[in-house]
């Protein structure tokens, strides 16, 4: 085989590989930037004979490739005591190479004045809102408008964006 053709082919293949690699690395998340993905989550659960009910609306916005915020609003009832939830959590998420999985970490929480959910209850029943250690999240599309968010325990909810 002519060495010049081989050199050209190797160069071409290398360029294709680099383009594909950079595309793969650039696809950071299926969540559209600056376009809210909205979900409403209703939980009706019993933990150790404690009745927990809550309705929370999530408005998830990815600001840049790997950071964003989730505005939560709703009500929380535990053993017939009612609380209001209104807070914005800022997060970062890093895509794990060549997968739909993300390393997700809450970096700060801003509570609205109306939010009266005690921290101990939030930490116990809404542990995914805790600042600190990173969590493993999986993002999948169910179609062009809907994204399924799952964690190690399985699917959590589906949000819809425009």
């Amino acid at each position, binding site marked *: 085989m002519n060495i010049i053709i*081989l050199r050209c082919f190797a160069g071409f293949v290398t360029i294709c590989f680099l383009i*594909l690699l950079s595309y793969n690395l650039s696809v950071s998340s299926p969540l559209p930037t600056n376009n809210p993905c909205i979900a409403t989550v209703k939980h009706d659960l019993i933990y150790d004979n404690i009745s927990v009910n809550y309705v929370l609306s999530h408005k998830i916005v990815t600001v840049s490739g790997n950071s964003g915020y989730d505005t939560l609003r709703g009500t929380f009832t535990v053993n017939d005591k009612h609380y209001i939830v209104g807070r914005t959590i800022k997060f970062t998420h890093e895509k794990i190479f060549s997968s739909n999985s993300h390393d997700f970490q809450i970096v700060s929480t801003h509570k609205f004045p109306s939010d009266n959910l005690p921290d101990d209850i939030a930490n116990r029943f809404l542990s995914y809102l805790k600042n600190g250690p990173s969590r493993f999240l999986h993002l999948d599309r169910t179609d062009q408008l809907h994204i399924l968010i799952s964690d190690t325990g399985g699917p959590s909810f589906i949000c819809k964006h425009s």
Partner: protein
Amino acid sequence: MTYVLDDIISYCPEDGTIKFLGGSDQDMTILTPVPNRILQLLVKNQGKMLSRDTILVEVWDNYGKVGSTNSLKQNIGLLRKTLDPYLNTSTIITMPNQGYMFNAQTKIIVIDEETSVTPELLIKQKEVLTNVKKNSLFRSLLSEKHLLISFTVLIIVGMTYLIYKTSTIYTSINAYELSNIDSCKIYSLKRYDTPLEMSEAQAEVKLILDRLKPQCSNQDRLFFYDNFNKDGAEEKSKLLIQCGNSISKEIGCITYRTNR
């Protein structure tokens, strides 16, 4: 007499054989008389420009044949085709409108088997040949051609893996049809392998639907999931998610989770 060119090939002008020293006996080419005479002439005059007329006289006229510039060009092309896979592509240099020259940079070792030699010289010649063979094998393994082919194969394997991974990133997940409510389809987010598991899941869905009584339009889709057999789940629960046009934009999709 044998010439070893660039420690890679041997050339014997007597029978016109060109042999790749790092290869098997199949890596051998036998030149026909005309290109053999041209190569012999060029090698003997390495580094000197030979005019076309000189070559025509030495190769054709002296053997009672009639040569032409065209046939000279064809034979030079044939020689390059034979030598280029092994040696530098500029082994035979064309001097425009003048003639041809065998590259002065090409290393030539002359091994004369006919000459009476002392045993020491014979041993030395054998050592040279052995080293030449070793070097040529090493060089052939590490030649640019082999490196390029290995590199390209490696890149293609990596690219195939990347294409596969890229094609599966953020593509729609599999959902398995479970049942329906009115005209809305209910899908399971996991696959049930047996009819029994499937009917249990359908019963769970019915229980949730009886409790929630969701409004449903044609375009709505409902997804069911239970983590009863899922490792890593903190609490066993089941969820039903409704997405579609009957839900307002402000609500998005509704996810209902219960363990009751």
